């Protein structure tokens, strides 16, 4: 019998874990929804690609007693358990942090169970009237800016702050960023040894990074959400609820901006441009450079991410991920040259992506951003 593909393994895992957790959740007074979009589509590829994430199920359900909607995260995987425990610690630390000028809202915890062999974390589902990308450009801009300013308001500067955060969060400075970027380069070079275009872009990025390590360090020590994209926050009456607290760390303050701007280069280039203009008009030249450097770093990371998936998938998804590598490399070129991504490149990629995406993944994407 041929070995199972990664997707088949995920299907097996999903089935097995649902069989384990469904009766337990029922006993605890929760009912799962029939549709579970967060465990379908390309979700299987999103496991264990970063050190921060383990295997887990993210499920939607309701509390039987009052029919309140909840989000359930459940795992028996060791890394997944660590992730959920860390996420909870991060969330708790944020509530009591002394050197934060402003705070985020977090979904209310309904239940947290940690046993030797499993962790279940249940939080209230945060309803929002419409997805972020359906808001007006002005609303999107002011909400994004508010969220960034809130992250930036937590700045660890003193000996005492450093001691407090090192126990809880990952802390990155210029040297660590550069080391990681070099790792991305090596992984990409091993997969694409003859792609000189990609290699040249990444090398240019590395040189820029090396020359400006001081600027990176200058804006380090800030709380930053490394996956700050619309599906990781919800807006309720101008309040921003932050999800996925395991993605929080102390690093360059533009790391979260960089992830968001790279994402918007694909989904809403007008917002990307507006946020860059905001930094150019209102902040220092060093900050604008720092933003550019972090965008380069995050692009190296996302290219590496999709490069690593190529050996783990097949068919249309493998084709799509190869296109994704090309697309993000084109954005890297644009960022390095301080230009906007060509609308033709964006449109071609979107067309190809939509043609290659599975039906299940398209369903997972509905209303996500």
């Amino acid at each position, binding site marked *: 019998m041929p070995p199972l593909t990664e997707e088949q393994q995920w299907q097996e895992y999903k089935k097995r874990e649902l069989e384990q957790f469904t009766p337990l959740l029922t006993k605890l007074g929760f009912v799962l929804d029939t549709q579970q979009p967060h465990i379908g589509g390309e979700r299987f590829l999103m496991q264990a690609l970063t050190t921060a994430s383990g295997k887990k199920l993210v499920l939607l359900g309701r509390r039987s007693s009052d029919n309140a909607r909840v989000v359930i995260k459940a795992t028996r995987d060791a890394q997944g358990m660590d992730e959920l425990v860390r996420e909870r610690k991060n969330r708790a630390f944020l509530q009591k942090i002394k050197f934060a*000028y402003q705070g985020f809202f977090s979904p209310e915890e309904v239940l947290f169970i940690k046993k030797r062999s499993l962790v279940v974390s249940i939080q209230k589902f945060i309803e929002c009237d419409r997805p972020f990308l359906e808001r007006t450009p002005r609303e999107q801009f002011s909400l994004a800016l508010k969220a960034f300013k809130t992250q930036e308001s937590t700045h660890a500067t003193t*000996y005492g702050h450093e001691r407090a955060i090192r126990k809880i969060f990952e802390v990155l400075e210029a040297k660590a960023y550069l080391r990681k970027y070099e790792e991305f380069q090596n992984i990409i070079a091993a997969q694409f040894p003859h792609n000189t275009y990609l290699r040249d872009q990444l090398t240019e990025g590395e040189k820029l990074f090396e020359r400006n390590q001081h600027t990176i360090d200058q804006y380090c020590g800030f709380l930053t959400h490394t996956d700050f994209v619309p599906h990781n926050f919800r807006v309720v009456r101008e309040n921003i609820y932050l999800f996925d607290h395991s993605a929080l760390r102390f690093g360059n*303050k533009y790391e979260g901006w960089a992830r968001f701007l790279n994402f918007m280069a694909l989904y809403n280039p007008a917002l990307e441009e507006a946020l860059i203009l*905001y930094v150019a008009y*209102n902040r220092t030249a060093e900050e604008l450079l720092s933003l550019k450097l972090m965008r380069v770093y995050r692009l190296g990371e996302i290219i590496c991410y999709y490069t690593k998936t190529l050996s783990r998938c097949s068919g249309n998804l493998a084709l799509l991920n190869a296109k994704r590598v090309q697309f993000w490399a084109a954005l890297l070129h644009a960022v390095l040259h301080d230009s906007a991504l060509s609308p033709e490149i964006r449109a071609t990629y979107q067309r190809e992506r939509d043609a290659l995406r599975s039906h299940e993944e398209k369903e997972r994407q509905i209303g996500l951003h």
Partner: protein
Amino acid sequence: MHIVHAYNHWHNTPNRVKMTRMKIILATPLYPPDIAQPAAYIKELARRLSHSHTVTVIAYARAPEEVSGVTILTISKRKPILFRLFLYTKMLWHAVKTTDVLLTENGASVALPAIIVSLFLRKPLVLHLGDMPAHTRDRHRFVYKIIEQWVCRRAHTIITDMPHDKPEILPFTAVDTAKTARYEASWNAHLALLNSAFQRYATPH
């Protein structure tokens, strides 16, 4: 001691005062990339004062944002508190020897070194109460409260005036020129106030 609460209490402007170029030290616990409001204030103050004076900023910072024409000396906040307090006092001592006036922001970590240095070197000390959250916090902490009371007693001039925050330029929103004008006017008045206070202590070079 002179207590100056607002710019309209002071009638001298840079045009009316014959200004002597002075050596000024700005002692601050916060400086960009710190994000608290006093940090941005000190950077802007240093930039504006440097047009007519020789300005040195002494801050607790690691990688400060530079300002053309301003010397910035720093002590890292990552050192244990007593050690960094000692290093800051030492640095301030050396810098103040050749200066005309020392302006310190409120906050025990700079106010204490500033009062010690000013006392021993007999240099005029101007206290700017610009960090109101710190001022409010310190009133409820015994040691900090004592330090602030001491610095208030010993300071030659206390200034509480604070210029307006810089208006942001926001995409999707028209620029508010009136707000920008008010911001500039508040800075002009603030500088006039400070210059008038500084000129009392001017020594010919």
